Structures are given as structure tokens and as C-alpha cells.
């Protein structure tokens, strides 16, 4: 049933994307960018890279939606934990 179709995206293109994003990340650190902007940019870039890996290398894009649910289920929990505890400690 699952031997029928294997979609293989252009893996080398994904690899190129990851490479370029990494270069941008590292370069950004050495440039004079305002701190808040830098942190935001780095987090977005990291999320983008993570998404590339999950969608194409881990094939989440070609899997049933319910499997994506399994993969995404823990994320809100982790965010709740970190945000709640962080605002508890960072109230200076």
C-alpha cells in the first residue's frame, strides 16, 4: 500500500536552502544588527530550517495529515511550559 508512490523532492535543492540559511545566520551574528531584531531573525531562520528538514527530509509534507498531528502535538505543551515559567522568572 505504501510502496505505490514515493515522492522524492529535489533533495539537493533543500540542502542548498539549508546551507544558504545557515550562512545567513552565521553572517548575521557578525554584523551590527540591533539585538532584538537579530534574535527574532535568528529564531525565524532556525524555524524555517527546521521546517525544511521536517517537511522534506522527514517527508511530513507527503504523509497523512494525522501523522503531522502526532509530530506537532508536543509543541504547544513545550511552549506553554517555557512561556509560563519564563514569565515567572523574568519578572525583574
Amino acid at each position, binding site marked *: 500500500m505504501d510502496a505505490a508512490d514515493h515522492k522524492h523532492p529535489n533533495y539537493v535543492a533543500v540542502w542548498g536552502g539549508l546551507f544558504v540559511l545557515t550562512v545567513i545566520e552565521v553572517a548575521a551574528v557578525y554584523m551590527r544588527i540591533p539585538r532584538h531584531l537579530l534574535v527574532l531573525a535568528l529564531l525565524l531562520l532556525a524555524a524555517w530550517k527546521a521546517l525544511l528538514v521536517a517537511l522534506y527530509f522527514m517527508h511530513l509534507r507527503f504523509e497523512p495529515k494525522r501523522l503531522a498531528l502526532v509530530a506537532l502535538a508536543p509543541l504547544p505543551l513545550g511552549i506553554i*511550559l517555557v512561556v*509560563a515559567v519564563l514569565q515567572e*522568572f523574568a519578572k525583574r
Partner: protein
Amino acid sequence: MTAAAAPHDAGLHAGHDDRPWLRRYVFSTDHKTIGIQFLFLSLTFLLLGGLMAMVIRWQLGFPGTPVPGGSILPDAMAPGGVIRPSFYNALVTMHGTFMIFFAVMPLLTGVFANYLIPLKIGAPDMAFPRLNMWSFWLMIPAGTLALAGFFVEGGSAASGWTAYAPLSNSPLYTGVSAGQILWCVAIIIFGASSLLGSVNYIATVVNLRAPGMTWMRLPLSVWALFITAILALLAVPILAGAIIMLLFDQVLGTHFYLPTGGGQPLLWQHLFWFFGHPEVYILILPAMGIVSDVIANGSRKPIFGYTSMVFAIGGIAGLGFMVWGHHMFVSGMNPTLGTSFMASTMLIAVPTSIKVFNWLGTMWRGNIHFHVPMLNAIGFLSMFVIGGLSGIFMAATPVDMYIHDTYFIVAHIHYVLFGGSLFAAFAGIYYWFPKMFGREMHDGLGRWHFGLTFVFYNLTFFPMHLLGLGGHMRRLYDPTQYPFLAPMQPINVFVSVSAFLLMAAQLPFVWNFFWSLFRGPKAPLNPWRDNSLEWTVPSPPPHGNFVETPTVYRGPYEYSVPGEPEDFLPQDRPAPARQEAH
């Protein structure tokens, strides 16, 4: 998709079993054998935890007097039989640790999830039988290491089962170093075992259901065990991470929780309770599932509000991840955060009450059969309501500030964990014993066991509410030290005596269990006239469970269907040649 039901292993069919002895009884990958192994292991740990409780109760009831038979204990624990304060702390810690991690959790998930899930969904075995075997065999080193703490320099971990930092990560406070390290390693191994179990239960329920076994035809016990597995899957790794950092604080000199090194002791509490509260539901949800099955059977009626039961289980589980702060109201947390934790905690009362009213609705006007599992299930229902109500007291921040860390909390946890989980576990053992071992348990002894346990359990734990409201601290070595507690000492004596009788009330169960194991009358295929698939196979079921993969036509609670000759309608019986009237 045929693969949903196809045996993962082509050679696995019920009937022919040529495994060598060792693979059959010791390193078995058969989910039924593993479930039974878990049963013996968890009952052993339950006994150990119970014995520890007896020693604790002796010290609280009769402080400073030698424990009967306590002279066999080494001087480091109890010189002349009198409990040392350090040993008392170790006992309190290990009583909690053993009961929660090594007794009740394996008893409810290890035993019933392993034994019941494949049988109830019509699968030949778990999705990953070999991982399942590892899940059991990892429990042995975990339990052994935890126990070994008693025999190392400095004694066992003594910072409570919650292991609050910095009490736990520096030997400065408890004088325990090696014992605490052993505790950490034991819990990490336990976490690995729990993870393997959870992955198995989830994959099995999702992918190995028999044809026709749709999600909304699953027995509620399977639903509860499935959601429990998700909770354990997502909560236990947080504990593992937290404990690894606690371990590193002790052995590598890191400073995660050490305030002297800039660390945050409260971080431990947050991480621990982020695991700890889902853990509470890991301990109660399977109990609710078992009770749902037993109550519907005992009432000979379809379960009331099946769909709402399913959503209530999910709701309890989901909310369970957002309430951990209610264990920490006195930690000086931001009032805004505290209030939101209070609100979310009270919200849990809604799905929980839905379940309680559904059980009552199931029994309402039912043709109730008071068989022993049903008695225990009703015991669960009534005691769980008391524990749940005292939980709502504690959810209110101002009330909790007053009763925090008193015996009121101890009473509450025992009402939900003994009154809730253990009564349900007894119900489950009485209910599925005939299926597991092919022999019936003695009915009269079962009734005596239930009656005595129910009475002495209440006599033990109800007065603890009063002690707590009077200010009796939890984890207190000697209550007579405090003048304001002295007038309540008779209550402590009463509680202790009741606790000893409660322990003695378990003797009929032990006798019944072992006697029935060897001498009980042979059990028929379906002694409770139940609908679920496990009752369509022989008792005990053969290796591979089903000769042919069963086909499911309906939900598991079709009792007393009008027009049927019997008052039950098994899930795999092809429908009669008429339209069903609902």
C-alpha cells in the same frame, strides 16, 4: 487497508506454540505473559510500599517506641527497633516512589494495557513485542536500584518523592548522597521503560485494530489506556530531563537547581510538576477506564454517554498539562499565573463530573449485579468523588495556602490513589483473573476483602483530613514534639491502628489470589457475560490470541438489547437479520 489488522508477524497464529520454556515464561514477547509478569512485579512492590507505610504509621502513632520486629533492622535505620529520623525520611520518600512509580503505574498501565489492549482490539500482539519485553525487564533494575538505596552509605533518598531542590541535590541537607543518585538513576530507567510501553500502546491502538473496530467502538478501558499512554509519552521525558539535571548537579557539579551557583530551585518544581500533574492522571485515567467497563457490565446497561466519556478522558488529559502550578501556590508565584492555574484546575472538575454522572446514569435503573468487581468499581466511584471534592478545595489558592503540606493533602492523594486507583485495580484483577489464569477467584473471600478494605480504608484516611485541618504537617517525624498537635495524638493512634487493620484486610486477597491460581474452579469462556473481544477466546487465551482475526460489528456496551435472547451482544457476533432499533 488490510494491514491495519494483519498480524505483524506472519508466523503468529493462535494454536501452535513451540517456543522454548525461557522464551515462553521469562523473556517472553507475548503481551499476555508480560502483563502477568507486570502483575506479579507490581503487586510485590505494592506490598513493599505497604510495609513501608506500616512502619511510618507505627512511628506516627507511637513515636519513639520500638517497631514490633524492628530489631532486625540495622542500627543505621532503627537502633533497637526505634526508627531514626533519617530512616523515617527515607521511608516516606520510598513509600511514595514505590507506590507511584513501581506499584500503581505498572499495575494500571503495565498490567492492564499490556494484557487488555491487543485482546480488546482484536490484535494478535502488541505492535513491538520485543520493545514490550524490554519495557518489563527495565523495571527490574529500576526497582532494584531504588531499593539498593537503603543499603548504601547515608541511606536511601530522603527528600520526598517530589525530590525538591535544593533539598535533593546537595547532601548538605539530608545527609544522603549515594542514595539520591541511585534514586535518580532508578527513575531514569523507569522512564525508559515507561517510554517503550507508551510507544507500544499508542502504535498498537492506532494501527492494529481489527476490521470494524472503529475508534468509537473501542471499549472505554482501551480509550483510557490510549490517552494515558499519550500522557506518559509526553510527560515522562520532562521528568527524565529534570532528573538528569538533578543528577548532574550531584555528580558533575552543575548548578541547575543550586541557588548558590545561580541556579533556580523553583525550576525543579516547575519541571517536576509539569510531569507530576499529568502523572496524577496517568494513575487515575486507566482506573476510570476499567471502572467504565465493569460498571456497564455490572449494570447490564449500555454505558451512559459513551461519546461524552471519550471526550471527557481527552479533556482531562489536555487540561492536565495546564494545571501544574496548583502544586506550587505557596512558592511565591506571580498571582496572575496562580489565578490562571486555579481557574484551569477548577475547569477539570467539569469533564470529571461528566464521567461521574455518566457512571451514575449507567447504574440508574440498571439490573445491577453486585459481583466483586462491581463492588470494587462502586467503591472507586464513591471514594473518588470524595477525593475529587477535596481536590477542588485545594484548587482554590487561598484555601490551599492554609492546608498546603498538611495531612489534608495526604488524605486527598490517598483518596484518589488508594480509593480511586487501587479499588479500580482490584476491580480489574477480580474481573480479568479468570481470563488471565483460566481459573475463577473465590467470591466470598473477594466480598470479605472488599468490605474490610472499604471500611478500614475510610477509617485510615478520612481522619487525616481532620489532622490536616488541625495543622498536622506532612512528612513529620514526631507529632508529639509540637504542643498544638498533642491533643490530636489519639487521632494519629486511631489512624495507625486502622492502617494496620487495612493491611491485614489484604490477607484474604493474597490467599484468594494464590489459592485460586492453583485450586480455583476452571473458568468458562465468558464468566461475566461481557461483550468485549477478549471473552470470545479461551481462558487463558493461546499465544497469538485469535485463530482468525475477529470482525467487529458494534460497540462494546450492547447490554440488554431489546429483542435479544441474552442480555449481552458480543462485539464480534454478526448482527441479526433485522434493523437495530437505535
